[in-house]
């Protein structure tokens, strides 16, 4: 914690960043994002395993951009989101600084190459609870899985917190809001919810950094993060590529190999 606060303070004092976007203790045992603009405030920064929000989501926000160059407190998923955003040309080298966290150490990274190296050294496996949940679902019969997702997704009231919490959902107009034609029904009825979540997962295919922020953001505790994580894991397995690892990378769904698997095609 002290290391983090010290790095943040130095980044501000040395004018390497204008604002530190980090985590602080919030209300009711929740964590919250904090935008530290003066070295004195750096003492509010903290980090623990309740910090589930992906702070990379704030990079694209106009009000945050107005504050000047940010330094992101970055556990692995935030760092991967930064790299993925860079690979999608959403940020440029030098736009931001990263205070990467791992094993209680803080590493200041400004070059994408440094971030790539850092990520390459860090294991990227899913949290065991998410891995187990996916495996449990995979073991079910198709009917059970259908029932499971029907009952979960039918509860959704389409507040779009999942989308808002996702650093990769940066489109100014989401497909769900495109109405010529109206692809996804607007109302939160079973079909509207079903298509929305399936579409969301597909549009994150090959882009999801598996941070789980969408699931954590859901006020109704619907485990929607399992959908994007599952797609991402499959893509990693089948095509060998992983989101948020390299800036100059071919995106899984906008590239191909001639020898890609096609055992399901007759």
């Amino acid at each position, binding site marked *: 914690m002290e290391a983090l606060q010290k790095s943040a303070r130095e980044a501000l004092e040395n004018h390497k960043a204008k604002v530190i976007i980090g985590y602080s203790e919030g209300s009711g045992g929740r964590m*919250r*994002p904090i935008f530290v603009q003066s070295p004195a405030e750096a003492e509010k920064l903290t980090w623990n395993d309740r910090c589930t*929000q992906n702070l990379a989501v704030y990079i694209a926000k106009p*009000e945050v951009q107005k504050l000047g160059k940010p330094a992101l407190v970055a556990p692995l998923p935030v760092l991967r989101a930064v790299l993925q955003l860079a690979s999608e040309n959403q940020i440029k080298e030098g736009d931001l600084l990263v205070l990467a966290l791992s094993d209680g150490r803080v590493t200041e990274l400004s070059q994408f190459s440094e971030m790539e190296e850092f990520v390459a050294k860090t294991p990227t496996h899913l949290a065991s609870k998410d891995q187990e949940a996916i495996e449990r679902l995979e073991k079910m019969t198709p009917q059970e899985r259908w029932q499971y997702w029907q009952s979960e997704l039918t509860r959704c009231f389409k507040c779009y917190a999942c989308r808002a*919490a996702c650093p990769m959902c940066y489109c100014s107009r989401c497909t769900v809001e495109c109405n010529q034609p109206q692809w996804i029904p607007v109302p939160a009825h079973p079909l509207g919810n079903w298509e929305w979540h399936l579409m969301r997962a597909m549009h994150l295919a090959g882009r999801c950094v598996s941070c789980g922020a969408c699931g954590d953001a859901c*006020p109704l505790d619907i485990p929607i993060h399992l959908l994007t994580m599952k797609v991402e894991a499959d893509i990693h397995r089948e095509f060998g590529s992983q989101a948020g690892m390299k800036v100059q990378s071919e995106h899984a769904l906008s590239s191909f190999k001639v020898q890609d698997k096609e055992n399901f095609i007759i």
Partner: protein
Amino acid sequence: MQKRSIRRAQINVLLEKLLSLHQVIYAPQKLGNQVDFAPLRDLQDLTLDHIQTVRSAKAALFPPVEELLRYQRAGVETELQDRDLTNLAEQVLFGTRPCDAAAIAPLSAVFTTDDQDAIFARRLERTTVISVSCERSDGDCFCTSVGVGPGDSRGSDLLLTRLQDDEYLAEILTAKGEALLQLAPELFGPEPAESKEAHLAKVQKRFDWEALHDKLAGAFDHPFWLRTALACLGCGACAYVCPVCSCFDIQDEGSQKKGRRLRSWDSCGLALFTLHASGHNPRSIQSQRWRQRMMHKFSYMPDQLQQLGCVGCGRCSRACPADMNLIEQVENFLFA
């Protein structure tokens, strides 16, 4: 108003009876790690030891998706089929907290002032509210700051307050409450000797809403909004769990030949809410949308409808993915 007593087991008998009369009962139930309102199918699912449900009970009066009418077109002729309101089921909201019940007044004010929204009015007419006073509260509760209390009877037809063990004080508040009593008078005992006050949660008053209202009046251009809304992600979670928020969208579903017109929940927090067809957006950044939410609840609604748009249930604070705590927001604003 009359006061009676009722035992926990007898409450279940009353609910059984209502279920047997084909009434839909919305009641708090455990869903995973959460407690939420849902139509009650089995009394075993009912829970009353929670502090607050995730969602409010407003969906029973203002459903997330509601049909407004159907249309059918043959050639150049169109036929409209009005929504049949005669078949709306009698429904009971059970286990609502006093804040939820208090939210019915501002919600009604929106839907019935000047032009009466028939669907809402009809649902309300067919709804009986049985609230249960709060024995406990948490740090997100602030009902007392907005003129509501943990044992308030406003908006309820019957208010239950647990006195000890399984004995409840039953306050019969309206004709609909009286009808419940008449449905099964044998379930109710005489008025208990004890009053409810000692059994209610202590909810600390955190701010003075009148001061807030007055300060907001001149605070549209206050730099506070830009600062405080930095964390706001721009979702509709706060609005959708709120018992008062009532903004909606109207959409057609189906083909041009046949389909229905629906209304569905919407939120001023979402970026496209105010977007003009020309591309111009009067509220183009999130801080403006956050300001709208605060202004609408604490300034505009009191001015327009003489109703505060907030009942202090704290759901928005609990639901916010970025932990924008409403009490803190208000306190910070009052100091700003």
